[in-house]
């Protein structure tokens, strides 16, 4: 698995640089505690909604993060720190921002060196702000709000895209797919959940879609949870859109999809953006409904050998290879690389190393990591479509594993 952990191997130049930095810091007398920890452990706090409605994605995130930690430790740990092993501290945000922030306080007391979390943008905003008080390096796994990295906090880093770039890319991919089919789609209805994730994404999509010649004829917000989607289905039906664009979490995503079928709503395709419920399980559970539905999301590169290997490994563990697994994996890789290049647990040094990351994550359709204000500019979401019981990347064409079926058959 060491192929998943680039830049962790030592080199003469890096050794000299780290040794020089260590000597320089030691001479100040300020970094002794970090040096004392160097051969010990690096503590990374994983804050996820382990209990509550998001317990499933949280379990997937933990699985991915712990897989990465196990791989890094098995490959010799943080080599520049004498093979320091990574230890995971587990925190439960219970889906609540205030609990997420409280977990940061607890982990700080426990001497955590870095944090990873928190699935929901709203929780990530609160937790990363709490971490900023102590300058603790914070790696976002899948929180998509751009506010996470737009606040000028020097301790927050995100490997995967935020909703600003995803909204732009999703619109571009839909434009491509529509144009390839002779532009049959003209109108869109957006259905989004009411928190930061859904509302923020929906707001950005409307003008971005207009640039592609697509008009948003209705935008419907719903609560979490929503027990009954019948009214929404009827409202969509009366708007007669060509495309339905759901932006919501797993439970509501699946209920909406079922209700659209029950209410006989006719549309060209469901084109979700960061659709929480669109995954291999959904395709297995409801193949008829899922077939030819499209989602724009974080997705592994199915053409890469390492991506395929990680999928096989995950499935061998009896789990679905959802985006949470590899997003959490690479966000731990990012932190490990930061510690490796910093050569210590000094927070300033690790944050500086993370800000200059140049990781190559070969299992994702990414370019080399380039951090701008904590956001990796080398990342991208892709459009995936359920086809014949599997998932295929259908846009952008550079990473496509199949041609889009649009309008759906």
């Amino acid at each position, binding site marked *: 698995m060491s192929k998943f952990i680039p830049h962790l191997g030592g080199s003469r130049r890096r050794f000299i640089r780290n040794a020089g930095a260590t000597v320089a810091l030691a001479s100040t007398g300020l970094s002794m505690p970090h040096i004392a920890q160097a051969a010990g452990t690096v503590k990374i706090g994983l804050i996820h909604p382990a209990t509550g409605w998001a317990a499933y994605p949280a379990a997937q995130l933990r699985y991915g993060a712990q897989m990465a930690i196990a791989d890094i430790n098995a490959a010799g740990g943080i080599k520049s720190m004498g093979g320091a092993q990574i230890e995971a501290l587990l925190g439960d945000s219970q889906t609540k921002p205030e609990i997420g922030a409280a977990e940061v306080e607890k982990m700080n007391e426990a001497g955590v060196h870095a944090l990873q979390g928190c699935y929901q943008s709203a929780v990530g905003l609160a937790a990363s702000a709490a971490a900023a008080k102590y300058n603790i390096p914070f790696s976002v796994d899948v929180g998509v709000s751009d506010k996470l990295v737009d606040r000028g906090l020097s301790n927050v880093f995100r490997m995967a895209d935020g909703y600003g770039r995803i909204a732009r890319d999703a619109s571009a991919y839909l434009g491509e797919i529509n144009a390839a089919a002779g532009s049959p789609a003209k109108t869109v209805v957006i259905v989004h959940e009411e928190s930061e994730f859904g509302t923020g994404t929906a707001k950005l999509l409307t003008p971005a879609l207009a640039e592609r010649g697509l008009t948003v004829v209705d935008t419907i*917000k719903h609560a979490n949870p929503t027990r009954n989607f019948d009214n929404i289905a009827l409202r969509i039906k009366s708007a007669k859109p060509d495309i339905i664009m759901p932006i919501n979490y797993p439970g509501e995503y699946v209920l909406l999809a079922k209700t659209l079928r029950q209410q006989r709503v006719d549309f060209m395709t469901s084109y979700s953006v960061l659709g929480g419920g669109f995954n291999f399980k959904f395709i297995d559970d*409801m193949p008829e409904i899922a077939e030819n539905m499209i989602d724009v999301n974080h997705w592994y590169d199915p053409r890469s050998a390492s991506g395929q290997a990680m999928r096989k490994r995950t499935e061998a563990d009896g789990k679905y290879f959802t985006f949470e697994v590899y997003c959490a994996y690479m966000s731990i890789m990012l932190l490990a690389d930061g510690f490796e290049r910093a050569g210590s647990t000094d927070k300033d040094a690790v944050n500086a190393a993370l800000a200059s990351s140049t990781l190559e994550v070969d299992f994702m359709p990414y370019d080399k990591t380039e951090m701008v204000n904590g956001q990796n500019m080398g990342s991208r979401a892709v459009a995936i479509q359920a086809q014949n019981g599997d998932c295929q990347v259908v846009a952008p064409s550079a990473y496509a594993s199949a041609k889009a079926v649009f309008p759906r058959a």
Partner: protein
Amino acid sequence: MFSASLSMLPAAITNGLMYGAIYALVALGLTLIYGVLHIINFAHGAMLMLALYAAFFLFHLFGIDPYLAILIVTPAAFVFGYVIYRWGVGKLSGGRDQNILLITLGLSIIIENGALFFFTGDQQTVSLSYSYEAVDLGFVFLSYPKIISFFASLLICLLLWALMTKTDLGRAIRAVAKQREGARLVGIDVENIFAITFGIGIACLGAAGCMLLPIFYVDPYTGNIFVVIAFTIVVLGGMGSIVGALLGGFIIGITESVGGLLLGESLGQIGISLIFILILILKPTGLFGSKV
């Protein structure tokens, strides 16, 4: 937009009625347990979740249709409820309200975390051969599962009403609810009646779980989605009233549906809270008082 919403009003009311019947069933157990035993069962949502899982596993492992599973899950839920009260809640609480509160709250935490451990947090759904078959009323499609759930809920409410008003057991339950010591003096085994009533309340959840599964999903926290609704219905209909629970279910179902249509699905939920507050101010005993 508003006129378009008005044209969908009949559909919204119909959908509200469909869901209202199931909400009533969830509330029925709560109202019975509160009305007779004066126990606020904080584990109500967790027990509903268990019923949903029971129906799910019967379908998943043995292919038993959730509606047929009612015949298995409902009696099993009764036994579960009876045992939990007889050798758990009743014995450990010593009859003190604060103990009961802590025990049911603790039970809820144990059940939910146990479910998380054993079943994982994954959301499970079932697809039946008739899941997407529907009756076209012109203004709305009513799926077979919703229609079946609606009539089954009505039937169960009717059966429970008959049990409470026409049988000796029902009379004994009502006697215990009205005058515990008096009932004991005329030879009624009060502790047994308490356990039976708790069992019946949980049996209602068993039936509700079977009816919810085809139209909803289950995960370890699904029960909580319905429990606030159930508490509102109990207050609205009147503690311990079966007719009140049914009517309250319909009112809440329609309020949720029409509120969502007119105010938006996000803001529409306010209607439920408004009804709850208004009832507390105007008629604290609920629409049907505290008759049992």
